[in-house]
């Protein structure tokens, strides 16, 4: 079947071309994509900071409608509404079986873009095309393994549901699980794009008394204050005196770094914001060359601060995607307010230009 898809033949600009998507076999599901979020991780792919095989269809945050299923697929049928998980749950690896499916060993194939042992999901001019995170949500048709597909209720708008697949889940869960924000905590969220704005909401929902949003873009600071932040400042440097004043010098139990690219300087500047036993959570990505960090080791030792990384915010996608959509339905998770601009697939490069220029909380591609 022919499908319009935004792909990268090498790092650089996306080109929108017609690919041939094959039919599903065994555990595979063919999905007619409805919407795809523009997430910062694709920016890493676009700019060659992610190891990947090319040509590759971009996009890993999407929702759609099941078109067809392979013979071994259980619990999914044509017409079902689904959200894709950027990390599959194989259900067998040591992480899946211990309840940490966000660390499923299959994540190793995210950049390879082809499920091990399977054919390429699509072809163009006789050449196999990979799909980022084995999804490729920038295609009208996606051929994915059932391990990456989560059925949702039909009443949720799919352009909202798409966001929950990666960015919203990652941010919210970074606060609720990875940072383990508790009632009465002081929390700092550094970088309030789609992920950070969700971390702000998660921290507020978990009962944080103080939620400081940090973002250089004025409109994002204003949006953060509408979504649950109690304070918003432009730079990390401004947070320290503010927190010192607000907490009587005790500082924040959780500092969540949700910027699109985390640097050593950003981490070092965030350390003084954390309380004793406070947790600094690294949610955002970085480039392979980002290895220089200068930290005050004595301070870490004496204060028992913890620096932790997180993938998808320690989420369990099959539980957390439906949970987040229930919270959206009941008005406790704001998604409508997070969508800044919608684009057609042909406008994908313009969408990323807006993301880089700081004009979007979240941009969404709506497939025609």
């Amino acid at each position, binding site marked *: 079947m022919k499908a319009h898809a935004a792909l990268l033949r090498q790092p650089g600009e996306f080109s929108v071309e017609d690919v041939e998507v094959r039919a599903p076999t*065994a555990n595979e599901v063919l999905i007619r994509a409805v919407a795809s979020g523009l997430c910062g991780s694709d920016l890493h792919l676009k700019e060659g900071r992610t190891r990947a095989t090319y040509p590759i269809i971009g996009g890993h945050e999407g929702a759609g409608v099941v078109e067809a299923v392979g013979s071994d697929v259980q619990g999914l049928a044509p017409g079902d509404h689904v959200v894709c998980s950027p990390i599959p*749950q194989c*259900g*067998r690896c040591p992480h*899946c*079986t*211990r*309840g940490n499916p966000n660390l499923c060993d299959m994540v190793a194939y995210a950049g390879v873009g082809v499920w091990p042992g399977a054919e390429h999901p699509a072809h163009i001019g006789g050449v196999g095309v990979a799909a980022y995170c084995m999804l490729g949500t920038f295609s009208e048709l996606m051929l994915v393994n059932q391990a990456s597909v989560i059925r949702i209720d039909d009443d949720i708008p799919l352009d909202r549901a798409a966001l929950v697949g990666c960015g919203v889940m990652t941010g919210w869960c970074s606060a609720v699980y990875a940072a383990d924000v508790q009632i009465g905590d002081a929390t700092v969220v550094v970088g309030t794009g789609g992920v950070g704005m969700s971390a702000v909401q998660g921290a507020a929902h978990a009962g944080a008394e103080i939620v400081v949003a940090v973002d250089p873009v004025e409109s994002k600071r204003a949006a953060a204050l509408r979504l649950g932040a109690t304070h918003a400042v432009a730079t990390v440097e401004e947070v320290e005196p503010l927190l010192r004043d607000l907490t009587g010098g005790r500082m924040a139990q959780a500092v969540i770094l949700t910027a699109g690219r985390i640097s050593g300087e950003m981490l070092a500047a965030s350390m003084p914001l954390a309380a004793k036993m406070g947790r600094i959570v690294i949610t955002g990505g970085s480039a392979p060359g980002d290895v220089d960090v200068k930290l005050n080791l004595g301070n870490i030792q004496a204060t028992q601060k913890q620096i932790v990384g997180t993938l998808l915010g320690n989420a369990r996608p099959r*539980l957390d995607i439906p949970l987040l959509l229930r919270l959206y339905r009941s008005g406790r998770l704001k998604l409508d307010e997070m969508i800044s601009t919608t684009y057609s697939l042909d406008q994908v490069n313009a969408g990323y230009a807006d993301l880089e220029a700081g004009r979007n909380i979240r941009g969404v591609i709506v497939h025609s």
Partner: protein
Amino acid sequence: MESRCIVTVAERRMEVRTLPVPDELPAGHGLLEVEGVGICGSDYDLYTGALGRMRPVPYPLVPGHEVVGRLLSDGDGALLCGARTGDRVAVEPVIRCGVCPECNAGLDNNCRNAMVYAMRPLADAPGLWGGMSQYMCIHPRTVLHPLPDDIPVEDCVLFNPLANAYDWVCRVGGAGVGSSVLVLGSGQRGLSCVVAAREAGAERIIVTGLHRDAAKLQLAMELGATDTIDVEAEDVVARVRAITGGEMVDRALDVVPEAGQPLIDAIEALRPGGTLVVAGVKGRPIDGVPTDRIMAKSLTLRGVRGISSWAVREAVRVIASRRFPLGRLHSHVIGLDDAERAVRMLGGEIPGETPVHITIRPQLSRR
């Protein structure tokens, strides 16, 4: 190709049959040449029908769920487990869906869509879903664990009771360095718990048994127990108090089937804040459980079911390490034709036999 196998056709009725092994297996499935299959209490419960009173049993079926063998063809699932055609593997008995809420919450032994080897009917082609067979069909979602070639198969099949022990003592019971652990029961599960408690770094390991279990209690000491109690000659709680200088234990594991007294003893033998793991199938409600003592001592009660994938990995690791004289745990090796006798022996029905762990080797007809 054909496979000689045991078919349980109804309660207390096992037959030796020969089933065809189809040239073409269901899509993605592998084929295993069974080297050995261990038997445990649930095999006996399946045989007597006690299991059938807890959940439906789809007779007729091929029994045997503690399986070690060699992959003749690997199928779709083996690759993801790091196993290839020709490898010797331990087969996890439960095939999990991986997508239900329980699977995703780390409760993989409570998978709501679980399929279990030895609980699939003959009617599901090709019917070879149990280990009491020369060949067994491997579902693509099975988790396989490669094993070294040079360890006796009778040691290898102990992965199942040892995995139970790792789950009960370590993952669920939370035993660690310095723990004091009371294991009530000295059958294959109780003895396996001694191994797991040793590996976890427990400081004191106390094992109880009946008067006739003297040899098993001696074996418990060889495996690393620090003390044993003959429950028919001694008061369990008083002995624990004496052994621990009044401090009592912080973990207690009841692995005794049927009897209610071990549960009550465990509650009394725990110190405040302790954890009781309930792992013995009683088959009935237990009267006389002192719930006020659970409350007053701030105890934690934990139930267990099946085995987790983590525990099987740990069990395979400890078998491969050769750190324990596990050979002392298997008392009988029996050929396929005598499988029914073996199951009855484990259930205590054969006078004069006191088995600990029994292995059936389907490639042998009699031994």
